[in-house]
C-alpha cells in the first residue's frame, strides 16, 4: 500500500504565548538595537533606543523564564553550546546585554555597534532554535530561520521609524533600510511558504496562510505605501511613518504569535504499512 495510515497531528501543548513573547519581543528588540547602533544617532537618544531594545529582549527572556518548569535552574540553559540553539541564544543574549549596557554607560557608538553584531547572532539563533524543533513540521522548514531573522529586522526598523516619527521626521537612510527590511521579510515569507506547504498539515497551513496574508498586505504593502505617501506629502509624513512603523511591528508580532500558538501541529503518527495478520 502506498498511503500512510495513522493518527492525525494535533497542536503541541508544550509552548504557549510565553514562548511566543520571546520571539516577538526578542525579535523587535534585536531589530531596534541594530538600526539604532548604525543610524547615526548619539547621546541620550542612542542610550534610550539601546535600553528599549535590551528591555524588549529581556522581557522575552523573562517571559520564557515564567514558562520553564524549574526556573531556579535557569542557568543550566548554558550547558550545551555544542548542539543546542537555546544555549547559543542565551550566550548571544549575554553578549548583547554586556556590550549594550557598556555602550549605554559610556554612550559609545563603537560599543553599540559591537552589541548590534551580537544582536544579529541572537536573532539568527532564534530562527535556528525554532527550526531545530524537528517534531513540528511548520517549524523545521529551513527557510523559517530567515523569516524569523528578517522579521526581527523589519519589526525593529518599524519600531525605530515609529519612535522617530513621534519626535521628528526620520532620516532617509533609516527609511531606506526599513523598506529593504520589509522587502526582505516578504521574500523570506514567500520562500518559507513554498517550503512549509510540503511539510505542514492543512490546519497549520490554513492559519499560516491567513497570517501570511496579513504580513504581506498590512506588513509590507501598506507600510511601503505609507512610506511613499510620507515622501510625497510632507504634511502627513510623520503620521504616515508612525503608522508604517507600527504596522510592520504589529504584523511581525501577529505572525510569530500564530506560528508558535496556532500553527505548531506535531508530526502525528503514520504507518507506511498496515499489519498483514495471519502470517506470523
Amino acid at each position, binding site marked *: 500500500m502506498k498511503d500512510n495510515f495513522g*493518527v492525525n497531528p494535533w497542536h503541541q501543548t508544550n509552548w504557549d504565548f510565553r514562548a511566543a513573547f520571546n520571539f516577538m519581543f526578542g525579535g523587535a528588540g534585536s531589530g531596534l538595537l541594530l538600526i539604532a547602533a548604525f543610524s547615526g544617532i548619539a547621546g541620550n537618544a542612542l542610550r534610550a533606543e539601546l535600553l528599549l531594545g535590551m528591555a524588549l529582549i529581556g522581557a522575552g527572556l523573562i517571559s520564557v523564564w515564567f514558562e520553564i518548569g*524549574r526556573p531556579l535552574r*535557569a542557568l543550566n540553559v548554558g550547558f550545551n553550546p555544542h548542539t543546542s540553539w537555546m544555549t547559543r541564544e542565551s550566550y548571544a543574549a549575554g553578549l548583547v546585554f554586556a556590550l549594550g549596557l557598556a555602550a549605554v554607560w559610556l554612550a559609545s557608538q563603537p560599543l553599540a555597534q559591537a552589541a548590534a553584531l551580537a544582536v544579529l547572532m541572537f536573532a539568527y539563533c532564534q530562527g535556528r532554535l525554532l527550526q531545530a*524543533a524537528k517534531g513540528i513540521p511548520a517549524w523545521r522548514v529551513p527557510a523559517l530561520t530567515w523569516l524569523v531573522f528578517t522579521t526581527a529586522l523589519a519589526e525593529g526598523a518599524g519600531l525605530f521609524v515609529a519612535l522617530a516619527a513621534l519626535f521628528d521626521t526620520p532620516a532617509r537612510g533609516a527609511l531606506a533600510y526599513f523598506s529593504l527590511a520589509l522587502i526582505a521579510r516578504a521574500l523570506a515569507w514567500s520562500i518559507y511558504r513554498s517550503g512549509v506547504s510540503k511539510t505542514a498539515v492543512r490546519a497549520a497551513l490554513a492559519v499560516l496562510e491567513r497570517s501570511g496574508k496579513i504580513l504581506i498586505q498590512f506588513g509590507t504593502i501598506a507600510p511601503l505605501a505609507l512610506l511613499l505617501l510620507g515622501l510625497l506629502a510632507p504634511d502627513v509624513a510623520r503620521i504616515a511613518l508612525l503608522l508604517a512603523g507600527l504596522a510592520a511591528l504589529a504584523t511581525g508580532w501577529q505572525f510569530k504569535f500564530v506560528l508558535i500558538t496556532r500553527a505548531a501541529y506535531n508530526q502525528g503518527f503514520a*504507518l507506511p504499512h498496515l499489519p498483514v495478520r495471519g*502470517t506470523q
Partner: protein
Amino acid sequence: MTRWAMVADLRRCVGCQTCTASCRQANATPPGVQWRRVLDMEVGEYPAVKRAFVPVGCMHCDDPPCMHVCPSTATKKRADGIVTIDYDLCIGCSYCAVACPYQARYKTDRASFAYGKATASEEQGFDPKRLAVATKCTFCADRIDAGLAKGLKPGIDPEATPACVNSCITQTLSFGDVEDPQSNVSQLLAENQTFRMHEELGTGPGFYYIWDKKVEETPS
C-alpha cells in the same frame, strides 16, 4: 557493541493496553502520562475497515533530536543506545518535547494521583524530582542494568527486561540487542518485514514494527 532495541509485531497486538498499565505501575507515572501508549487506528470505510494497534513511546533514536536541542545536557544517549534524562539537570523548558517527532515526552508541573489522594503504591513510587521536568520511557534502564549486573540477559530474562515487554499477553513486544545477530530481536528482524516510525526524518529509531513476514525468494 550493544544496541538495545524494541520490536513490536503489529500482527499480534490486540490493543489490550496491558503494556501501558504495566509501565505505569512499574514507573509510577501520574495520570495522563503514558510512557508506553498503544494507538488504536481504524482505516477505511465499512465494510473494508482495517484496524491496527500500535505501541508507541520514546524510540531511543540513534540521532535523537531531543538530545541535540537540550540546553542543559539533561538528555543524553548511553553507549547502548538508551536515551536518558537527568532530572537534576533538566530545567523543564520543553524544547525536547517540541523536537521529538514521536510525542514521547511529558512534563507534569504538580503532583497528581488517580483518585485525588495518593494510594500506598503511588506514595511509594512518587518521585518529586520528576515534577516540572521532562520525562519519558527509559526502556526500564534500571532493570536492564540491575539484570546485567546479575549476569542476566535483557529481553530473555524477565528480571532484566522492560516491564511492558514482560507484561505483553500476545508477545507483540520483544526487546534485545540488535547488534547481536543471534538475539531474539535480530532474528525477528531477519525473518520479517519491518519499518520504523517517521524514518524519513533521519532520527534512526530503536523501535521496529513488524507488519508482514518476509517473502521467500523462489529459485528460478
